[in-house]
């Protein structure tokens, strides 16, 4: 008992000391804390939703001091507005501003809030589009989007299985390396997107830290899971396990992709272009190829293909729901980096699987593996060009 008490005391000691220091700074430390220049307000418009005849704007006070919204302009015109719960927001406080503005669908809108001290904080919406509400119809539409860009392409890629099955060992090495190349491309893509989104979230959320935690967290978690599973499963099932790991990794990545789909709607960044969906479908088909490569030397029952396809593709649907109805940039950064970490862990598994105990870099250095890796990059790059059209 006394050892436990001692343990608790030794834990609490620094905390108590810290509390005393903070109390001192708050009461007597004014000369230290006071600054000759007053701190500057900072408000961020986190979201602008276009509802019938009304623009709804969410504002976050991510500055060091309370701030008050005094006036609102839309496209350089002072406009009537109402604000809840309060025009004055404490630090980290939020408010919702309703502006009865006759916005024009498909046109850019600049929304600015002017604080009581005259500072102006703006948000430029590139294309105003009606905000979806979580109705069955909208859920259905987002699900449909997810099926088209996520699920169907993955299943199409799985159809390469009979082809892979007829290949010799050398060619399998090539396709596994190609898979690694595809995955590295996907991982970097997710990471790049995570950094991009983190650039537009308030500093307060520390986007880079979220990315580091998300990437490392999912990378290490998947390692732990695969170690646990590989001990339990019979020795011949390494290919199976790997296929599922790849599927999970791609699924997490596609969750991030789904988020972007949904968010693109509410952020008003959607432009018309049906042929781009086709391009994207072609691009994502490569994901299915990556999943079935490790299965080439086994005879999996059909239901496994169903599961592998769903695990990889269905998260796109879930992601698009989250992104469409409750989009948040910080959450998006987290999801994207989790996806990236998962992908990188899968890359590691793939290479180890084909290295058969040899050092990973040495395995990659063989002409077959190296050219497979390069072809993987190239395939992703070229199919991305459809997307870029």
């Amino acid at each position, binding site marked *: 008992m006394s050892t436990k008490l001692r343990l608790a005391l030794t834990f609490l000691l620094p905390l108590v000391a810290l509390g005393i220091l903070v109390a001192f700074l708050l009461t007597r430390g004014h000369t230290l804390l006071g600054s000759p220049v007053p701190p500057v307000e900072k408000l961020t418009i986190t979201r602008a939703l276009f*509802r*019938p*005849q*009304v623009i709804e704007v969410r504002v976050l006070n991510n500055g060091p001091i309370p701030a*008050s919204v*005094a*006036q609102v302009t839309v496209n*350089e*015109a*002072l*406009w*009537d*507005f109402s604000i809840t719960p309060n*025009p004055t927001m404490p630090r980290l406080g939020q408010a919702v501003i309703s502006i*009865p*503005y*006759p*916005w*024009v*669908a498909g046109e850019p809108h600049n929304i600015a809030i*002017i*604080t009581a*001290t*005259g*500072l*102006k904080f703006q948000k430029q919406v590139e294309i105003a589009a*009606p*905000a*979806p*509400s979580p*109705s069955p*119809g*909208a859920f*259905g*539409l987002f699900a*449909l*989007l997810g099926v*088209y*860009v996520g699920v169907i392409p993955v299943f199409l890629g799985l159809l390469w299985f009979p082809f892979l099955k007829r290949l010799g060992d050398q060619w399998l090495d090539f396709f596994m390396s190609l898979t690694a190349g595809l995955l590295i491309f996907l991982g970097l*893509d997710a990471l790049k*997107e995570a950094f991009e989104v983190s650039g537009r979230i308030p500093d307060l959320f520390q986007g880079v830290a979220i990315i580091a935690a998300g990437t490392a967290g999912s990378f290490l978690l998947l390692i732990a899971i695969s170690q646990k599973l590989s001990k339990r499963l019979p020795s011949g099932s390494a290919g199976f396990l790997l296929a599922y790991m790849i599927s999970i990794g791609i699924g997490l990545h596609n969750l991030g*992709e789904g988020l*972007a789909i949904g968010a*693109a*709607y509410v*952020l008003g960044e*959607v*432009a*018309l*272009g*049906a*042929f*781009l*969906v*086709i*391009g*994207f479908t072609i691009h994502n088909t490569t994901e299915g190829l990556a999943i079935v490569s490790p299965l080439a030397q086994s005879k999996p029952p059909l239901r496994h293909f169903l599961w592998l396809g769903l695990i990889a593709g269905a998260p796109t649907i879930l992601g698009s729901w989250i992104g469409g109805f409750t989009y948040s940039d910080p959450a998006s950064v987290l999801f994207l980096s989790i996806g990236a970490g998962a992908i990188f862990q899968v890359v590691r598994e793939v290479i180890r699987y084909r290295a058969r105990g040899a050092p990973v870099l040495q395995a990659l250095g063989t002409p077959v593996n190296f050219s497979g890796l390069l072809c993987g990059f190239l395939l992703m790059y070229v199919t*991305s060009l459809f*997307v*870029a059209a």
Partner: protein
Amino acid sequence: MVSRREFLKYGLGGTAALGAATLAASAGGQTSGHVPAAGASGHAVMIPKVPRTFGDFNPMAFLTSFDYGRVQRLSDGTTLREYKIVAVDKEIEVAPGVKFPAWTYNGTVPGPTLRCTEGDLLRVHFTNAGSHPHTIHFHGIHPDNMDGVFEIVPTGGTFTYEFHAEPFGLFLYHCHVMPIKAHIHKGLYGAFLVDPRQPRPPAREMIMVMNGFDTDLDGENEFYTVNGVANYYAAHPIPVKVGELIRVYLVNLTEFDLINSFHLHANMFRLYRTGTNLTQYEYTDTVMLCQGERCVLEFTYKYPGKYMFHAHQSEFAELGWMGFFEVTGSTGVG
């Protein structure tokens, strides 16, 4: 190359076509993609509420306030007018809720409208109680040492400007310490009106100083106003009578933007450029003034009702430079 996700942003519309109707319906029936041009509630102007007074500053009172100074008749018959002007730093409200750390003459932006008659001897006792050096530079004819350019008045200093008011017309005064742009946009200016010896016909007279406020100090105005408060006369229309002669002394002290303008709805006015001539220059409904330019407008309303006036730069109008005349009384003419 556009990334996979950027593609999503641009390419989604294609998939959207698969279910666009569904989404449009779920978004609240905005199927046409456009909303009616009128404000949601059908009001002519969708502006936030504006209080009637801002501390001790009442723009409605300012509109018709003229400072004639302390008047003395000198032995030679000349009228001596003495004015007191104090430069003081003051936080003012330029739009409801929006504070601006101004530099002011006598605590308001614009400063008081100084009024006299041609030939009067003027003594302007200037005290600088502000945190920066200032002067008063008057437009009009006077010696160089009364021009407010070289005799910089430091904080706590005083200076007396003395000169004869000539010629008659509508002028202005402002601080002329460099950087001049800063001293003007922060609020050190006002109107200076010299009446002709033979007065203009009696009228309902108003001063309107057009200006702007760069509240976030980025070199662009956030607000445009007449007499210092955005949308004031739109929220509180100026009451006038049918048939009454209205004379507006219009001064442009907008900083950053090259020009400003005045447009009168459903009416025409006689324009007297700079007010230095009693013969009308033009009969029009819109006048454009460069920075520092001014003019006198005369008009009467034929019909009762509510009539708008505003800058004809729509941007300025919608950022605060608009107002109404509320015309009452019976129609004089059938």
